[in-house]
């Protein structure tokens, strides 16, 4: 599969056996989803062939795939929110009465039968919009079972699940494999899950399949170095100076997510000048909403946020930025850039009102702007088709450099950084990490959030763990190991200890 200019999957040969759990791992953008989308017929390969159950796939379409017994649970659920569970499950194979009417009762009955057979509890008549994400995932799995799937593809199924829900999901996987002889392919980037559930594991990197191993013959460290293509060893970054005064103070903050559910629950934290506070948490535990509430992208329900000693709770981003904050957002494409605008324009946003770039305060001085942009472009070693080309046409790494270059050039005393190197190549990672440490050493207070635990450990002075919207632990970075911190990221430690 080739996207314009990008080779997403490059010459991959892979066999998956009946009745096994096969894990496919790799970093974001390694091509895992593309490979599975080809298997499910959503994408068509530019070259090569696919055989399912010994049959060569001729016409790539989901219809063919379903016919061959392939079922896929997508990362973003394919459910119609206003339909009931049963209506979603039977879609495309609806039971009918009188030959043309939708038989809702039969749909619910069949759903209930599936529920009973597989032990996946869900109310057939519930409306999908009103049930939790974990239940929605069950509906997705039931849907593939209803369609008679023998091969089940799960695309990052645990990203949105709580640990309990993950455990339940894994039970289901084991059961369908054992009792029904199903084949399960699970895409993930969480290595401990690979170790927990899979029989074999394939590792992808930059569109290539770099290795397939029996899970029992490998370990997380081994897989990790295969994923990034080198032993995970960075040079030590030189950290200088000591922490100074308090610059970010969050107290008793409560924030809701887009669905109105509580995402951050009565949370407090503090970040000081000259230190990096890292947040370690599994996706969907409120860290995104927390950073959005601090930067003004989201209105908190309760609590206070103070930046540089000033109360900025519920203020808008322009007011908060004025106090002295810059922000690298977690999703650069939706929030960090304007894709159709040029590199120059993207670097200028936020500075466009500055006196030096405007004659009489309103007439843009294009030559000054271009000179400035060129300077930043070179300083941050951005590589692309030039300052006039669209940012949207750049690679992920260079796009991220544009974001970093712009936000860092504000020279603010406070930085909020989220997923600074997601989907970014190794060279750019090193560059961005050094830039972040440089900011820290020059006295900025930095709040960092990353799904990459290595990154959190490498950059942070202190680390807090978040789980279900609460801080579950707080540590000096050198006083805890990655293995230990895993406990805190998957639940309230104190609670577990109390129970034990």
């Amino acid at each position: 599969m080739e996207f314009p200019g990008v080779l997403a999957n490059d010459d991959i040969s892979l066999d998956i056996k009946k009745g096994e759990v096969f894990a496919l791992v790799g970093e974001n953008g390694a091509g895992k989803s593309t490979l599975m989308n080809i298997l499910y017929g959503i994408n068509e390969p530019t070259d090569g062939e696919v055989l399912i159950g010994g049959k060569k796939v001729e016409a790539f379409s989901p219809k063919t795939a379903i016919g061959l017994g392939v079922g896929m649970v997508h990362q973003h659920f394919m459910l119609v929110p206003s339909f009931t569970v049963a209506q979603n499950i039977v879609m495309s194979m609806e039971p009918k009465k009188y030959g043309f009417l939708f038989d809702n009762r039969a749909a619910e009955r069949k759903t209930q039968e599936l529920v009973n057979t597989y032990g996946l509890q869900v109310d057939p008549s519930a409306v999908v919009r009103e049930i939790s994400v974990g239940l929605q995932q069950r509906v997705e799995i039931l849907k593939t079972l209803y369609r008679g799937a023998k091969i089940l593809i799960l695309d990052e199924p645990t990203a949105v699940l709580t640990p309990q829900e993950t455990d339940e999901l894994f039970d289901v996987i084991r059961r369908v494999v054992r009792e029904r002889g199903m084949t399960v392919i699970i895409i993930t980037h969480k290595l401990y899950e690979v170790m927990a559930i899979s029989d074999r594991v394939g590792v992808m990197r930059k569109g290539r399949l770099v290795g397939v191993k029996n899970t029992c013959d490998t370990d997380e460290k081994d897989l990790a170095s295969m994923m990034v293509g080198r032993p995970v060893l960075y040079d030590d970054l030189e950290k200088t100076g000591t922490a100074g005064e308090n610059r970010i103070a969050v107290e008793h903050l409560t924030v809701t997510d887009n669905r109105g559910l509580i995402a951050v629950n009565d949370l407090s934290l503090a970040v000081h000048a000259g230190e990096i506070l890292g947040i370690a948490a599994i996706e969907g535990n409120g860290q995104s909403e927390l950073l959005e509430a601090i930067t003004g992208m989201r209105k908190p329900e309760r609590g206070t946020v103070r930046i540089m000693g000033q109360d900025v709770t519920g203020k808008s981003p322009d007011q908060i930025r004025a106090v002295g904050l810059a922000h690298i957002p977690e999703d650069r494409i939706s929030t960090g850039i304007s894709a159709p605008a040029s590199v120059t324009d993207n670097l200028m946003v936020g500075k466009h009102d500055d006196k030096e770039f405007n004659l009489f305060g309103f007439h843009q001085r294009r030559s000054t702007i271009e000179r400035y942009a060129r300077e930043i472009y070179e300083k941050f070693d951005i590589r692309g088709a030039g300052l006039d080309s669209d940012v949207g046409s750049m690679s992920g790494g260079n796009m991220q450099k544009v974001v970093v270059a712009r936000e860092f050039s504000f020279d603010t005393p406070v930085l909020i950084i989220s997923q600074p190197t997601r989907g970014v190549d190794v060279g750019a990672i090193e560059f961005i990490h050094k830039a972040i440490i440089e900011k820290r050493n020059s006295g900025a207070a930095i709040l960092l959030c990353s799904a990459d635990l290595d990154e959190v450990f490498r950059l942070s002075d202190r680390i807090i763990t978040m789980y279900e919207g609460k801080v579950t632990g707080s540590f000096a970075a050198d006083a805890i190991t990655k293995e230990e911190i895993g406990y805190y990221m998957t639940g309230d430690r104190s609670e577990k200890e109390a129970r034990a």
Partner: protein
Amino acid sequence: MNEFSELLKSILSPGTFNEMLRRATPVAIAALGGALTEHAGIMNIGMDGMILMGAFFGVLGSFLFSSAWAGLAFAILIGVLVGLFYALFVIKFRSDEFIIGCALNTFALGLTSYMSRAIFGTSGAKGYPSLPDLHLGVIGKIPFFGGVIDGHSLFVYVAVLLVVILWVFVYKTPAGFHLRAAGEKPETLRTAGLSPDRMKWIASVLCGVLCSIAGAHLSLGYLNGTFAENMSNSRGFVAFACVIFGGANPIKTYLASLMFGFFDAIGLRLQGTISSDLTGIIPYAITVIMMVYVVIRSNRRKKHAQKRDPKAAGGAA
């Protein structure tokens, strides 16, 4: 006081409701088509042009074949073509549906006016075979009710039938489920091995046909075989308002068109008391208020969901 009760009497007379039904029907039939495209996720502004095409080609067919039924068939055929044309641009070429809708309205105005003048020589045509009025015999004798529903043109009754058929289609058949899924979340269909675009094509063509029928009813039934330049007279936009008001539910959409028809009808009754232009505003104002209310309510529901469901509120994701 006496004056007021007189007025009320004239408003609530069978005549008013008869007029309401008469005026609502052309809009209602078109709005039913609009409900289908709305469900398929297409904002259809082009209904006015579709009605106009149906109105003109209905009369043209009636003129060419000397039969109102042939005119109706001709209009339906044109409706299919217009629906296909609309779908080609909006679905196949992914053009802006608003611009295509606007352009279709203007195109229909240009084409029908031009052809009307080229063929009939004037900007209108009159007196060609028309669709029959129906008299209901005994039912027509029922006090009040009989006076309301008796003696209308054929499609006033067909419209009610269409409401039922489309309601069943949208909410009770597998195809209806696919149609709604195509508008609400097309990916679900794609990953189920079905084509959301196919549902959108079907909705567009059905909308073209229904709007054409509305137009043919307008020229051949409502006005007894008459075509006048721009005779759709923004009914397509009224139909659009009905679709929005009725949330694209065929029954509610039909009721919305009755509401528009009612305010249209009492405008005549109230002449000399209140200007019909002011009463004409009322249904549009109600539609805007409804839209705002619907959005605010759905926002409030989200907040309430959290309070009602403490377990979900405690959950992480």
